[in-house]
């Protein structure tokens, strides 16, 4: 149980990652509130600075690079709130992370379920 199992394409969100990503996640947590979302939209870089994001985190935010945000300690629960600010849903985010369009990502989901029997 204590050994860390490496799983392809998956970053285990554990103590070290949560430590690395705390400021980033704290910023995204404020996107629960309309005020936080508005303030971010007005000046994204300044909002990142306000929360003390690292240069790598800030760059990933500005570039909407979800995978980089995860490598920098972002938790998907809070990154989902960031995605919400950008008007993206979980299929859009899935596509962005897997190099697919949203439609291709939906087709991938479908291929593992209903799409199997529907052909």
């Amino acid at each position, binding site marked *: 149980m204590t050994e860390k*199992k490496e799983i392809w394409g998956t970053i285990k969100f554990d103590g070290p990652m949560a430590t690395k990503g705390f400021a980033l996640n704290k910023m995204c947590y404020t996107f*629960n509130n309309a005020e936080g*979302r508005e303030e971010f939209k007005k000046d994204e870089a300044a909002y990142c600075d306000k929360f003390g994001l690292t240069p790598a985190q800030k760059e990933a935010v500005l570039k909407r690079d979800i995978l980089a945000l995860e490598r920098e300690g972002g938790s998907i629960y809070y990154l989902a709130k960031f995605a919400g600010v950008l008007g993206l849903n979980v299929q859009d985010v899935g596509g962005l992370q897997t190099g697919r369009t949203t439609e291709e990502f939906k087709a991938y*989901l479908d291929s593992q*379920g209903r799409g199997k029997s529907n052909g």
Partner: protein
Amino acid sequence: MAKIIGGITTSHIPAIGIAMDRGIEDTPYWKDFFSAYPPIREWLAEQQPDIAIVFYNDHGLEMFLDKKPTFAIGCAPQYENADEGWGIATIPPVTGETELSWHIVNELIENDFDPTVCQDIKVDHGLTVPLSLMYPGRKYQHLKVIPVCINCERHPMPKPSRCYALGQAIGRAVESFAGDQKVVVFGTGGLSHQLDGERAGIINADFDNECMDKLVSDPEALTRYSNDDLTEIAGAQGVELNMWLAMRGCMLGKVREVHRNYVAPISNTGAGTQLLLPE
């Protein structure tokens, strides 16, 4: 004595709440999913449970990483929902419960579980979507809800075996409560899915169906998985199975399944629904 009259498993993803708000339950994409619920609603209407113990996980509404309980239990007379940031409508307050909940807390601590005890928490879609599903039109105020929140976000998370044991301890606490309340237990979330990483989008329908089988006949087999195993087999958020295991633990003895549905994909998940009755 209070009595657990049944257990319900259900998905709790936000997309469901959004679909209900838009009134698109009968569209081709959704109808196979929503068709699972009328029989459960009828059972609830017939049985009229007084209390629902709802196992859910908070997805960053109330419990941020700064203070994140491994297990938390609510003992409040009321729970508010709030803006979660990505457009699911906030629902009216949920009625709480302050007698059985404190009894459960006392019994848990007496039996070596040490949950965080909450007298004022906001509840997120993990709890509100299942309630909305069971009581369309948000007619759930008559039901007293006891939220039990399990950390499914940050490792280390409680082990499946421990979640099951927590459920058993809660089930025994209900049985020892002097009252004649009828209690229903909800296991919410799941089943297989992964939102993050290059591996995002994995669904394992075979495993999901096996979980639903085992939940009925041999739940202890599921407690032998580690959270890492679940991540590998069912995706990073496949660990939400822990809420189903806690629900099943509450039911203590043998159960029979009177209703089941499974649809994949629903949003990024395999969506399972079951109604289990004590035998």
